[in-house]
Protein backbone atom coordinates (compact mmCIF):
# COMPACT_ATOMS: atom_id res chain seq x y z
CA UNK A 1 0.00 0.00 0.00
CA UNK A 2 1.29 3.43 -0.96
CA UNK A 3 0.99 6.03 1.78
CA UNK A 4 1.38 9.75 1.02
CA UNK A 5 1.60 12.60 3.51
CA UNK A 6 1.40 16.34 2.87
CA UNK A 7 1.67 19.61 4.79
CA UNK A 8 2.37 19.34 8.51
CA UNK A 9 1.37 15.66 8.45
CA UNK A 10 4.46 15.08 6.29
CA UNK A 11 6.63 17.31 8.48
CA UNK A 12 5.64 15.48 11.68
CA UNK A 13 5.94 11.98 10.24
CA UNK A 14 9.23 12.97 8.67
CA UNK A 15 8.58 11.68 5.16
CA UNK A 16 6.20 12.37 2.30
CA UNK A 17 5.73 8.85 1.00
CA UNK A 18 6.24 5.25 2.00
CA UNK A 19 5.20 1.78 0.96
CA UNK A 20 3.78 -0.35 3.78
CA UNK A 21 2.06 -3.70 4.17
CA UNK A 22 -0.54 -3.28 6.92
CA UNK A 23 -2.03 -6.42 8.53
CA UNK A 24 -4.88 -8.00 6.55
CA UNK A 25 -7.51 -7.03 9.15
CA UNK A 26 -7.04 -3.35 8.37
CA UNK A 27 -9.94 -2.68 6.04
CA UNK A 28 -10.62 1.03 6.36
CA UNK A 29 -8.72 4.29 6.73
CA UNK A 30 -9.61 4.73 10.40
CA UNK A 31 -8.02 1.45 11.47
CA UNK A 32 -5.06 2.14 9.20
CA UNK A 33 -4.53 5.46 11.01
CA UNK A 34 -4.73 3.76 14.42
CA UNK A 35 -2.16 1.22 13.22
CA UNK A 36 0.12 3.98 11.91
CA UNK A 37 -0.02 5.77 15.29
CA UNK A 38 1.69 2.75 16.87
CA UNK A 39 4.67 3.22 14.58
CA UNK A 40 6.25 6.07 16.50
CA UNK A 41 6.01 9.51 18.05
CA UNK A 42 6.00 11.29 14.69
CA UNK A 43 2.93 9.37 13.54
CA UNK A 44 1.28 9.83 16.93
CA UNK A 45 1.81 13.59 16.77
CA UNK A 46 0.70 13.89 13.14
CA UNK A 47 -2.46 11.82 13.55
CA UNK A 48 -3.45 12.74 17.10
CA UNK A 49 -6.32 15.06 16.14
CA UNK A 50 -8.39 13.21 13.56
CA UNK A 51 -10.68 16.21 13.02
CA UNK A 52 -7.71 17.95 11.38
CA UNK A 53 -6.96 15.06 9.01
CA UNK A 54 -8.28 14.88 5.47
CA UNK A 55 -8.18 11.66 3.44
CA UNK A 56 -7.85 10.72 -0.22
CA UNK A 57 -7.93 7.14 -1.49
CA UNK A 58 -6.63 6.62 -5.03
CA UNK A 59 -6.59 10.41 -5.46
CA UNK A 60 -10.27 10.86 -4.62
CA UNK A 61 -11.40 12.76 -1.54
CA UNK A 62 -13.11 10.54 0.99
CA UNK A 63 -13.20 10.10 4.77
CA UNK A 64 -11.88 7.93 7.60
CA UNK A 65 -14.57 5.30 7.05
CA UNK A 66 -13.51 4.60 3.47
CA UNK A 67 -12.63 0.94 2.76
CA UNK A 68 -9.07 0.22 1.61
CA UNK A 69 -7.34 -2.74 0.04
CA UNK A 70 -3.78 -3.85 -0.66
CA UNK A 71 -3.00 -1.91 -3.83
CA UNK A 72 -4.54 1.41 -2.79
CA UNK A 73 -2.85 4.79 -2.66
CA UNK A 74 -3.87 6.44 0.62
CA UNK A 75 -3.06 10.10 1.30
CA UNK A 76 -3.36 11.81 4.70
CA UNK A 77 -3.08 15.58 4.95
CA UNK A 78 -4.32 18.75 6.69
CA UNK A 79 -7.15 20.87 5.23
CA UNK A 80 -6.06 22.19 1.85
CA UNK A 81 -4.95 25.76 1.32
CA UNK A 82 -5.01 26.37 -2.42
CA UNK A 83 -5.52 29.60 -4.31
Amino acid at each position, binding site marked *: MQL*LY*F*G*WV*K*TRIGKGRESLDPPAEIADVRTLVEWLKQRGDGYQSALEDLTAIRV*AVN*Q*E*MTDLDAPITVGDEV*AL*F*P*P*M*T*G*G
Partner: protein
Amino acid sequence: MIKVQEEDFDIGTELAAMTDGNHAVGGQGCFVGLVRDMANAEQISAMTLEHYPGMTEKQLASIEQEARSRWPLQDVLIIHRYGRLEPGDRIVLVATTSAHRDAALESCHFLIDWLKTKAPFWKLETSETGENWVAARDSDDDAADRWGSDAT
Protein backbone atom coordinates in the same frame (compact mmCIF):
# COMPACT_ATOMS: atom_id res chain seq x y z
CA MET B 1 -7.87 24.12 -19.36
CA ILE B 2 -5.79 23.23 -16.32
CA LYS B 3 -2.11 23.99 -15.87
CA VAL B 4 -0.16 23.08 -12.73
CA GLN B 5 3.33 24.47 -13.08
CA GLU B 6 6.38 25.79 -11.27
CA GLU B 7 7.08 28.64 -13.69
CA ASP B 8 5.43 32.04 -13.81
CA PHE B 9 2.80 32.95 -16.41
CA ASP B 10 2.08 36.05 -18.47
CA ILE B 11 -1.44 37.29 -17.76
CA GLY B 12 -1.83 39.18 -21.04
CA THR B 13 -0.70 36.25 -23.15
CA GLU B 14 -2.94 33.80 -21.31
CA LEU B 15 -6.05 35.98 -21.46
CA ALA B 16 -5.56 36.81 -25.12
CA ALA B 17 -5.08 33.14 -26.04
CA MET B 18 -8.48 32.30 -24.53
CA THR B 19 -10.39 34.68 -26.77
CA ASP B 20 -8.35 34.84 -29.97
CA GLY B 21 -10.59 33.89 -32.86
CA ASN B 22 -13.63 33.21 -30.67
CA HIS B 23 -16.13 35.97 -31.40
CA ALA B 24 -18.88 34.33 -29.36
CA VAL B 25 -17.13 35.64 -26.25
CA GLY B 26 -18.66 38.84 -24.92
CA GLY B 27 -16.95 38.92 -21.54
CA GLN B 28 -13.94 37.55 -19.71
CA GLY B 29 -13.62 37.24 -15.94
CA CYS B 30 -10.19 37.03 -14.34
CA PHE B 31 -8.69 36.60 -10.89
CA VAL B 32 -4.97 36.65 -10.06
CA GLY B 33 -3.75 35.49 -6.63
CA LEU B 34 -0.44 36.87 -5.34
CA VAL B 35 1.90 36.14 -2.42
CA ARG B 36 1.48 38.77 0.30
CA ASP B 37 4.39 39.89 2.47
CA MET B 38 2.52 39.74 5.78
CA ALA B 39 0.88 36.91 7.72
CA ASN B 40 -0.33 37.32 11.30
CA ALA B 41 1.83 40.46 11.61
CA GLU B 42 4.94 38.54 10.59
CA GLN B 43 7.07 39.49 7.63
CA ILE B 44 7.07 36.70 5.06
CA SER B 45 10.20 36.13 2.99
CA ALA B 46 8.92 33.16 0.98
CA MET B 47 5.95 30.88 0.49
CA THR B 48 6.47 27.32 -0.71
CA LEU B 49 3.51 25.57 -2.26
CA GLU B 50 3.36 21.81 -2.10
CA HIS B 51 0.75 19.83 -4.01
CA TYR B 52 -0.39 16.28 -4.72
CA PRO B 53 0.66 15.57 -8.31
CA GLY B 54 -2.02 13.61 -10.12
CA MET B 55 -4.79 14.41 -7.69
CA THR B 56 -4.29 18.15 -8.16
CA GLU B 57 -5.00 17.93 -11.87
CA LYS B 58 -8.03 15.70 -11.25
CA GLN B 59 -9.50 18.03 -8.62
CA LEU B 60 -8.99 21.13 -10.74
CA ALA B 61 -10.54 19.41 -13.77
CA SER B 62 -13.49 18.41 -11.61
CA ILE B 63 -13.90 21.99 -10.34
CA GLU B 64 -13.74 23.26 -13.94
CA GLN B 65 -16.46 20.79 -14.94
CA GLU B 66 -18.61 21.96 -12.06
CA ALA B 67 -18.30 25.58 -13.22
CA ARG B 68 -19.15 24.60 -16.80
CA SER B 69 -22.25 22.77 -15.60
CA ARG B 70 -23.46 25.81 -13.66
CA TRP B 71 -22.78 28.63 -16.14
CA PRO B 72 -22.82 28.87 -19.95
CA LEU B 73 -19.06 29.23 -20.42
CA GLN B 74 -17.00 29.37 -23.57
CA ASP B 75 -13.76 28.53 -21.81
CA VAL B 76 -12.13 28.09 -18.41
CA LEU B 77 -8.46 28.51 -17.56
CA ILE B 78 -6.89 27.67 -14.21
CA ILE B 79 -3.12 28.06 -13.81
CA HIS B 80 -1.83 27.15 -10.34
CA ARG B 81 1.84 27.37 -9.46
CA TYR B 82 3.78 25.30 -6.94
CA GLY B 83 7.29 25.51 -5.50
CA ARG B 84 9.06 28.42 -3.81
CA LEU B 85 7.48 31.84 -4.36
CA GLU B 86 8.28 35.27 -2.94
CA PRO B 87 6.07 38.23 -1.99
CA GLY B 88 4.61 39.80 -5.11
CA ASP B 89 4.83 36.58 -7.11
CA ARG B 90 1.73 35.33 -8.89
CA ILE B 91 0.31 32.09 -7.44
CA VAL B 92 -2.84 31.45 -9.41
CA LEU B 93 -4.77 32.66 -12.44
CA VAL B 94 -8.44 31.88 -12.92
CA ALA B 95 -10.10 33.12 -16.08
CA THR B 96 -13.47 32.42 -17.67
CA THR B 97 -15.14 33.51 -20.88
CA SER B 98 -18.80 33.67 -21.74
CA ALA B 99 -21.25 35.51 -23.95
CA HIS B 100 -22.18 37.72 -20.99
CA ARG B 101 -20.48 39.27 -17.97
CA ASP B 102 -22.56 37.69 -15.20
CA ALA B 103 -21.59 34.14 -16.13
CA ALA B 104 -17.93 35.11 -16.57
CA LEU B 105 -17.62 37.01 -13.27
CA GLU B 106 -19.72 34.68 -11.12
CA SER B 107 -18.01 31.51 -12.35
CA CYS B 108 -14.59 33.07 -11.81
CA HIS B 109 -15.53 33.90 -8.20
CA PHE B 110 -16.91 30.38 -7.73
CA LEU B 111 -13.73 28.78 -9.08
CA ILE B 112 -11.36 30.68 -6.83
CA ASP B 113 -13.56 30.04 -3.78
CA TRP B 114 -13.68 26.33 -4.50
CA LEU B 115 -10.02 25.83 -5.24
CA LYS B 116 -9.10 27.52 -1.94
CA THR B 117 -10.53 24.56 -0.05
CA LYS B 118 -10.75 21.71 -2.60
CA ALA B 119 -7.48 21.83 -4.52
CA PRO B 120 -4.75 19.76 -2.83
CA PHE B 121 -2.19 22.50 -2.18
CA TRP B 122 -0.48 23.33 1.10
CA LYS B 123 1.40 26.55 1.81
CA LEU B 124 4.56 26.76 3.89
CA GLU B 125 5.49 30.30 4.94
CA THR B 126 9.06 31.26 5.70
CA SER B 127 9.59 34.22 8.04
CA GLU B 128 12.35 35.41 10.34
CA THR B 129 10.98 33.16 13.08
CA GLY B 130 11.13 30.03 10.92
CA GLU B 131 8.75 27.99 8.82
CA ASN B 132 5.04 27.67 9.39
CA TRP B 133 2.32 25.73 7.54
CA VAL B 134 -0.57 28.01 6.70
CA ALA B 135 -3.75 26.88 8.47
CA ALA B 136 -7.00 26.58 6.56
CA ARG B 137 -9.42 29.34 7.44
CA ASP B 138 -13.08 28.84 8.33
CA SER B 139 -13.88 31.92 6.24
CA ASP B 140 -12.57 30.09 3.17
CA ASP B 141 -14.85 27.14 3.92
CA ASP B 142 -17.76 29.54 4.31
CA ALA B 143 -16.89 31.19 1.00
CA ALA B 144 -16.86 27.82 -0.76
CA ASP B 145 -20.03 26.64 0.99
CA ARG B 146 -22.14 29.57 -0.14
CA TRP B 147 -21.95 28.25 -3.70
CA GLY B 148 -23.93 25.19 -2.63
CA SER B 149 -23.47 21.45 -2.62
CA ASP B 150 -20.09 19.83 -2.85
CA ALA B 151 -19.95 17.79 -6.03
CA THR B 152 -16.24 16.95 -5.84
